[in-house]
């Protein structure tokens, strides 16, 4: 699996918005499934998803990127996720929380704790919700 192919496929997600064709999303899912057991390809996919998160893509695109990171995310994409967690829109923060889920990561726990302290009031419940779930 070539890096350029991965970046091109995942990059299509940046143009996605609610109600638009979801073909790109299914292509990414196929890519993820095919890359099982290939850590190099997985890291490229993760990087490409992280790039969508920090781009000017729609909330819909970022949510879809986070749904994929929910499955395959590692600490590698945490810095990008931080941007979502620090947003002032609870819907954006929720997308970042979705990506983290309960995936064990001391670094993610630390980041969540640091973020919730500085979070605007409207976003704090979303972060606290996940922190409590992660135990």
């Amino acid at each position: 699996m070539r890096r350029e192919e991965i970046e091109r496929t995942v990059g299509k997600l940046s143009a996605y918005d609610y109600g638009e064709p979801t073909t790109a999303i299914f292509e990414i899912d196929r890519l993820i499934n095919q890359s099982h057991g290939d850590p190099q390809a997985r890291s490229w996919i993760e990087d490409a998803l992280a790039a969508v998160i920090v781009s000017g893509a729609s909330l819909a695109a970022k949510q879809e990127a986070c749904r994929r990171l929910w499955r395959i995310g590692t600490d590698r994409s945490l810095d990008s996720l931080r941007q979502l967690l620090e947003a002032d829109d609870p819907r954006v923060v929720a997308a970042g929380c979705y990506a983290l889920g309960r995936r064990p990561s001391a670094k993610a726990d630390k980041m969540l704790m640091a973020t919730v302290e500085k979070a605007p009031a409207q976003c704090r419940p979303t972060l606290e919700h996940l922190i409590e779930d992660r135990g």
Partner: protein
Amino acid sequence: MPGTGRWGYTGRGMSGRDLTTRRGFAKAAVAPLFVPASSLGLGGATPPSDRIAVAGIGMGSRNRRNIQEFLEAEDARVVAVCDLFTERRDQAKQVVDAHYGNQDCRSVRFHEEVLGREDIDAVVVGTGDRWHAVMSSLAAKAGKDIYCEKPFCLTIAEGRQLVNVTRRHRTVWQCGTQRRSNPGYEFLVNTIHSGRIGELHTVRLSFGATGGWKQNSPAKPGKAPDPALFDYDRWLGQSPWAPYSKDRVRLWRLNWDTGAGAVADMGPHFIETVQWVRGDAHDAPVTYEGEAEFRDEGGINNIPYWYEIRTRYRDGLRLYMDTGRKGLMFIGDEGWIFLSDTGGIEARPEGVLAGLDPPDANYNIQGPHVRNFLDCVRSRQQPVSDPESAHRAHTIAHCANICLRLGRPVRWDPTAEEFFDDAEANNMRYRTMRAPWRV
């Protein structure tokens, strides 16, 4: 005539078991532990003190069917209905009031108005899938007993959390897998246990044609209705935020955000029966493999509409799930028996059923399951589809779904409730809920 008419269905009502008769009920209701909330003098306009006060939450077609059974039960009284759709809750109130010949049924928009009432003993949860575990948890914490539709959880973690909540609050909780109390299914299990098909080696569960699960729509965003008529944000519940779309609401079963997919929709019904046959409601297959087809042309439908799943228990029993003719086939080394979801029972060789008189096994026979729940509310015993058993049955369906989504085999440890050496699959056991909703 029980089970007919008002909701426009042709069910079989509460016939079929001695427990549904007055004498049978009297035998079962001797346990003195339950005191109906209405007899405590805690409520306002309350039903007679010996009746279990029930409220319906989520009054779509499925729960209207459920509530009909509670209306038919002489020891229960439906006192409230709740739905985010004004039209649905008003219609439900009309039916309840018509049944009792009064105007006493309360019609409310939010579940808080039900769960906060101390004169309500039990709730019947028939919301969308995303709300089942959350609503069950809220109701348990409010001290209610619960009859909850399936699939009762969207993830394995949700299921486990609800088991813990019901234990903590000593909640009587019944999963709405009514086939578990169906006399035809009991006949099936007894026939297999009697050895008439020899040693069981394979079970094939078929969940029916793909038609309904193949629907799709781009789900173009539209203007959300007035929340007073339909509260879309509350409807979404734990699901990730998305703009209102008429088709998102209409086709909610076809998207992982709001539904649990076809396998988890029908699976729990049939899987509970497999576990029943095995005599162990808490076990699960340890290997899963299969294939699926998705509507990958794009749209709101992102669940598999066609699938073939092959699993195997530790003792070697093979459990397959597919989209064939709806029903359960148990295959032994001396024959097979098939129970159609519409009620017929077939077997080969013909001698398997020789001298037997199979009862009707139609899926719509629901009275015995509701009866079992009401009896348990009084006795404080857990019903036949108790939280742990239902969770385990749902877990098998969720494992199958995870296998299909990953597109590769997975191995499950039923004891630890985790996938062997598979971080990706294990991440999928849990999903972050939108605040403030949780189990």
